[in-house]
């Protein structure tokens, strides 16, 4: 008799926990008008605005974004995370998704290039990669697209520069600069523009050696395949391009 209430309580708690988990997840496929877009962290500002414009043109459609490192997103997709569209910051992670059979026919919609971000006013007078010698600077780790690009650019310059830290993604690389912990950071032009109140962007010729192509595709397991295809077309169209151009991207 004494165990009954305890058992009941456990059951209630377990149920509550299960239902809480269920409704908290992103896989709400009951609502067909929700589009889940996994996009590279460097697309955060541009895609948030493109999403708003897309929603304004499509009644009853809600676009939900998950912004993270492209490699994280590619892993989530190949491991079966429910999503409709994938926009990657590089071809390599898109290839992983295509190879896993989770998507086909990705199309390039933007190009991005590295700049040297420096504190506003450029106190150290950085004019090119060579000026980073003797300064503390941050870059992405080689495992993520912005890091691979940084390494290619440094190699192309023929200098032997080593950053003080290899950050896990471009936003935390820039954050080290805005927090004042480094004198410069190798980030995408788009990230420097997004933070232009705090940082200046110094263009450098070697970045042309490491241009990243951003591909987009609807995913094979999309819960809303028609909407996914429509959103993909929208991103490739002129309306979205206006937003991407303002953000600092180049057209493929």
């Amino acid at each position, binding site marked *: 008799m004494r165990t009954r209430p305890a*058992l009941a309580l456990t059951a209630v708690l*377990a149920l509550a926990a299960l239902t809480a988990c269920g409704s908290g997840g992103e896989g709400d496929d009951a609502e067909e008008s929700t589009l889940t877009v996994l996009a590279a962290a460097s697309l955060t500002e541009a895609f948030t605005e493109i999403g708003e414009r897309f929603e304004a043109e499509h009644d009853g459609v809600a676009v939900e974004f998950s912004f993270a490192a492209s490699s*994280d997103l590619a892993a989530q997709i190949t491991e079966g995370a429910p999503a409709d569209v994938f926009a990657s910051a590089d071809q390599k992670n898109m290839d992983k998704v295509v190879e896993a059979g989770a998507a086909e026919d990705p199309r390039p919609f933007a190009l991005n290039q590295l700049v040297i971000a420096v504190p506003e006013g450029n106190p150290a007078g950085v004019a090119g990669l060579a000026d980073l010698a003797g300064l503390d600077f941050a870059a992405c780790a080689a*495992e993520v697209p912005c890091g691979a690009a940084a390494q290619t650019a440094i190699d192309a310059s023929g200098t032997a520069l080593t950053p*003080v830290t*290899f*950050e*896990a993604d471009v936003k935390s690389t820039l954050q*080290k600069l805005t927090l004042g*912990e480094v004198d410069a950071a190798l980030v995408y032009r788009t990230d420097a523009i997004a933070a232009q109140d705090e940082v200046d962007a110094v263009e450098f010729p070697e970045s042309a050696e490491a241009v990243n192509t951003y591909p987009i595709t609807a995913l094979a397991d999309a819960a809303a395949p028609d909407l996914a295809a429509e959103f993909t077309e929208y991103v490739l169209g002129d309306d979205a391009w206006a937003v991407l151009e303002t953000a600092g991207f180049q057209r493929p």
Partner: protein
Amino acid sequence: MPAKRNRQRRRVPAALLVPAAAGLAFLILPLAGLLARAPWTELPARLAEPAMLDALRLSLVTASLATALSLLFGVPIAWLLARGDFPGRSLLRALVTVPLVLPPVVGGVALLLVFGRSGIVGTWLHERFDVTIPFSTTAVVLAMTFVSMPFLVVSVEGALRGADVRFEEAAATLGAGRWTVFTHVTLPMIAPGVLAGAVLCWARALGEFGATITFAGNFPGRTQTMPLAVYLALQSDLEAAIVLSLILLAVSVAVLASLRERWTAVA
């Protein structure tokens, strides 16, 4: 002995056994998932990688240093919270547990704001001693200590509250000074609590990721601990990340198991 054990086993109520079994399955299954996915043939090659060994050594050294710092400062804090009699004690107790609640990445930013190049303490350290903490191994130890010390404080405080004050009073009556009472009566009484706290603290420090990558950055051999290496491996190679995690798990379980054997041998 066996008869006694049997009788005890029969007495476990279903109301405890069922949730215990469900809870254990929940805790253990993800590990089983990792084991099932691990590329065992790659293991020997990974183990021989110098970068992996650097990360493992750095993790073990920094987590141990963080535990030592936590013991040095955490035990006195716990004593203050359990035995001290001053206004604002419950507020102080709540503040000590802040790092438990704070997302570790935010903890890392907070540490930068204090110990960073332009932080309150960091500026002074830089001007006075020409020392910069971010991106150094010291930063790794500080980040780990920040997030793991509360675990030690909470366990030790619990042990102190559970300990019988009368032994301390008796020792004091017999002429022992307060420091002698602490070292000869209190500490031996709460030793199991301190050890449990130290183990929790070490384990938390070993797994520390968010505060470390934010405050100390990621530089192989200097600040790249195993969790950071695992996270970066995850960016390009899931299997490599799993192998690295399993190595970290195996080493930490081995260390904890050997320590436990030593303690029980002493006791």
